[in-house]
């Protein structure tokens, strides 16, 4: 009699396939790798930012935040939307891979991508840009920020993927990515925005993620409000995605 494989083997097989397909999506690689790296290298080399002191120390958390948004909102969300459109999710639903297995594999693939992104951006900062991390950096806070940010943006990405048509999802996810770049404190500090925009930016997940990562980098602390904002987004987005996702 035919038996299903263990969950671990099924998840590993799906995760491997997710990574292979991700590596073939040129447009996703652009958003996940090229744009964050270009933001870091360009603004660290060209003195257009009104930042005092450690410019790389300011830009690195921003570019990492952008990379995480690209991996979880843009790549995961858009790919999943198209998988729904192509009936990939339907076919997987007829296999012994459970929905829980599939979500685990997709989030696992996002985390693998994020580790590679962080490693690359750190290497660029320390290598070509000659950056030295300041004392008092808080890796645990950074990891918490990355995990909460991944939950929030993957939740948003899956919510859009599971409710919109593939093309609408593509457009909106890319729009949110640009919005996050502009309003997320990635390049322009939120404090430099006009008051009305700054007020909006403060309650959006991108600025909260950047703020947490920046606090973790320079060791100044004071990211409690951002942790609350990002945590709320993570719970709301993941909950909404679970509630409203349509598989076919």
């Amino acid at each position, binding site marked *: 009699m*035919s*038996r*299903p494989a263990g969950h671990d083997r099924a998840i590993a*097989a799906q995760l491997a396939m997710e990574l292979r397909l991700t590596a073939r999506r040129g447009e996703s690689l652009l958003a996940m790798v090229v744009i964050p790296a270009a933001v870091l290298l360009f603004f660290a080399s060209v003195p257009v930012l009104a930042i005092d002191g450690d410019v790389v120390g300011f830009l690195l958390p921003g570019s990492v935040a952008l990379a995480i948004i690209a991996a979880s909102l843009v790549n995961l969300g858009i790919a999943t939307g198209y998988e729904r459109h*192509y009936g990939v999710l*339907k076919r997987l639903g007829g*296999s012994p*891979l459970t929905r829980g297995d599939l979500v685990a594999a997709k989030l696992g693939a996002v985390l693998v991508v994020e580790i590679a992104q962080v490693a690359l951006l750190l290497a660029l900062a320390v290598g070509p840009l000659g950056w030295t991390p300041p004392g008092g950096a808080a890796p645990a806070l950074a990891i918490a920020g990355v995990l909460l940010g991944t939950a929030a943006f993957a939740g948003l990405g899956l919510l859009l993927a599971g409710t919109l048509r593939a093309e609408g999802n593509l457009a909106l996810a890319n729009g949110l990515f640009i919005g996050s770049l502009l309003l997320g404190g990635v390049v322009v500090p939120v404090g430099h925005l006009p008051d009305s925009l700054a007020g909006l930016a403060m309650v959006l997940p991108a600025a909260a993620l950047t703020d947490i990562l920046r606090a973790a980098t320079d060791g100044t602390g004071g990211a409690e409000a951002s942790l609350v904002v990002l945590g709320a987004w993570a719970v709301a987005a993941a909950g909404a995605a679970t509630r409203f996702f349509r598989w076919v």
Partner: protein
Amino acid sequence: MSGGAPAAPASAARVQPAIRVADLVKRYGGRTVVDGLSLDVGPGELVALLGPNGAGKTTTVEIVEGYRRPDGGSVRVLGVDPAAGGRDLRARVGLMLQGGGIDPRARPRETLVQYGLFHASPRDPDELLRLVGLETVAATPFRRLSGGERQRLSLALALVGRPDVLVLDEPTAGMDPEARVVTRELVSNLRTAGAAILLTSHDLSDVERLADRIVIIAEGRVVASASPAELIAGTAPRLAFRVDAPLDDTAVAQVHLQLRAVAPAARIVAGHGDAVYTIEGAEPRPDLVAALAGACSDAGRLILELRTSAGSLEDAYLALLAEHRDGERG
């Protein structure tokens, strides 16, 4: 090609059906798409679901696959409700869906490896690629495969977990004749090996060669359920003809009058296609042909085609559907 139906399955195969559909009802909005449909498929048996577009074939198949829930009646696959069935059931059921369901960037071999790893003891991916003839495109992205190659990959994916039950929706659609032959043989071997197979098809020659039993459905109901040979034998021969322009009501009445002079129960029924008719209620006889020729001549119509229909599954199928439509009209 007639009489090509395989032997009936061993009686033991009917002991416990692998698929049991009983009084199935499915409604979309106010429309009843499946209306009290019942069918069984035993181990080692191949049942083909035939019917016109919109007859409820795909809806029935999707309920058997567990993708949709019935509004009435019950469906059991290997004794389990497929909509609630977990991974143990899905490990034993191979599905061939219409329309791919594979990422355009994914390649056949890696997709077989991926799906194989969802099963405890999958079939070897390379053996499957050979079996369906995809070795040369094993590393070609799905988007560059032809329609027939996509179908063959879909079939290989249905087989990767060594299923006890196979549900194949239009398995040979888009295949070239050679792939069609390979697929038929493959499906036939699986049935011989003991799998219970439910398939839908528009290709009557496929169905005639493969099926142990054909279930013809129309408007969500079973119109006939029999072996191909029984269906063909059960159809009385009829005269079918095509004229150069459709017959209006006056012409039909005129034709009826003249036909009934030689066969009192004769009436003409519109067939599939423009100006195509069958004479029901009368055996083909020389005097009937003469009466028809005279009637058409009087009606100013040229007979373009005249033949006796019987002896093919297609004729049996069309006759059963025509009978069903007549029944509907009262």
